[in-house]
């Protein structure tokens, strides 16, 4: 599964990417996760992603991200605040599984 994380500059979401990957490894899930800054979203969406997850601190830009993703039909969801931490991998994976079955 290909998961794209969007935050402001792609820095903080990189930490969450690691948390998701290690949790996915534990659960034996095959997951390709990547973090990007808000400005790169439009370009990235062309390369085939299953879901876009939005960092909580940029949730006020959700509409803008949804509009960008609508063109390629990729679902967009918010990361719950408690999942956005180095220890939040399990929370985010549960969220992903809710969206992409």
């Amino acid at each position, binding site marked *: 599964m290909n998961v794209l994380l969007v935050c402001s500059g792609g820095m903080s979401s990189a*930490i969450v990417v690691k948390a998701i990957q290690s949790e996915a490894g534990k659960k034996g899930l095959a997951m390709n996760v990547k973090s990007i800054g808000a400005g790169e979203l439009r370009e990235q969406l062309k390369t085939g992603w299953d879901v876009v997850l939005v960092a909580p*601190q*940029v949730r006020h830009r959700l509409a803008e991200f949804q509009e960008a993703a609508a063109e390629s039909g990729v679902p967009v969801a918010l990361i719950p605040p408690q999942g*956005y931490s180095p220890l939040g991998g399990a929370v985010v994976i549960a969220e992903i599984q809710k969206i992409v079955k």
Partner: protein
Amino acid sequence: MDKFFQLLDRYLIPVMTRMSEQRHLRAVRDGIISTIPLIIVGSFFLIIAFPPIPALAEAVKPYAGKILLPFRLTMGLMALYACHSIGYYLARSYKLDGVSGGVLAMAAFLLTSVPLTFEDKGLALSMEGLGGGGMFVAIVMAIFAVEVLRFTKERKLIIKMPEGVPDSVARSFEALIPAAVIIPAVWVLRDVVGFDIQRFVTELFQPLVMAGNTLGGILAPVIIITLLWATGIHGDSVVGTVARPVWLVLLDQNIAAAAAGQPIPNIAPEPFFQWFVWIGGSGATIGLVLLMLRSKSPYLRSMGRATFLPGVCNINEPVIFGVPVMLNPLLFVPFLLGPVLIATLTYFTMQLGLVTKPYILVPWTLPAPIGAYLATGGDWRAIVLVIVNIIIVTVLYYPFFQAYERKMLREEAGAIQEETK
């Protein structure tokens, strides 16, 4: 306290985020951000030309002029670069051709300058209005140009190319009519009527720039950014959208003074906040992270370990959402008060001339003491000030952290009891 957060959520957050998502401001934000790599690398040459070590400074002095050239052609033309990007992003936001928007914006901006004639060298364009000082002129002209582009397109005032003409060719003709409006319009106003657009716009925004450099002008963004982060919204990116042009003008004035070997005039360009206030990230959470490292609560201790390195690099989303600080009444007081306190202290320290005012933009992920040292052009006293600021916020966080730690310990003990039941 919950009431307070609800009030923030209802009033401050929607106003601020809506403002930061306003189309023109968003284009200005994205346009300016795209020039930051040039500013960072360009202003590095300033440090090389004026190294902080006296012996070295003496040695490079004869070459200073040459070393400064990359700085002058990046930072020195910042408004020109930004103008193109702003035009590009604004056009794109209207789903118009970005490159046309950028090129038209640049033309409109350049037309506000009048080249000088030198008998032996020909025409020369003064760089003065094209640097950070001309930022507001660049913004106004970019918006003007793209709005004309949009207007002509909406009114179908475009030259339609027959079928079969390649897309890129057809697009370049779409900008023909807007160009035929923009160029004469600016020319008539500037050169025929003789209205100095650059001076007018610069003076119009001058009060804003001056206010940005006062103690109130420093504390207002500090408080708003912290309040936004306290509810989990990226305060810097929201407030920066509005404040960054002002910070860049202040930075440009500082850098110009430094390049001319004069005392630095302004306290409050962005590096002031970056290195002396947002130590470890917004809310100066480095103090909290240091305390968590030795916490008795296993959760907070593991949080401290996981957030220490990102914190050194000024990334603190893990602290804000993990601890969490967001909507946490126990940690809210030091989260707000800490930055206000150290911002005020730093302001007066610089006002008294005890630490050099910042004038170099360095990548924000450097550890604060190093960033502060470089941002002040190599003033070791900046390092001392950063360390003092870290001690202040750590002490301030301590009692609140203890209260939160006790709460966590109780909950953790409760969770274990639940499990053994």
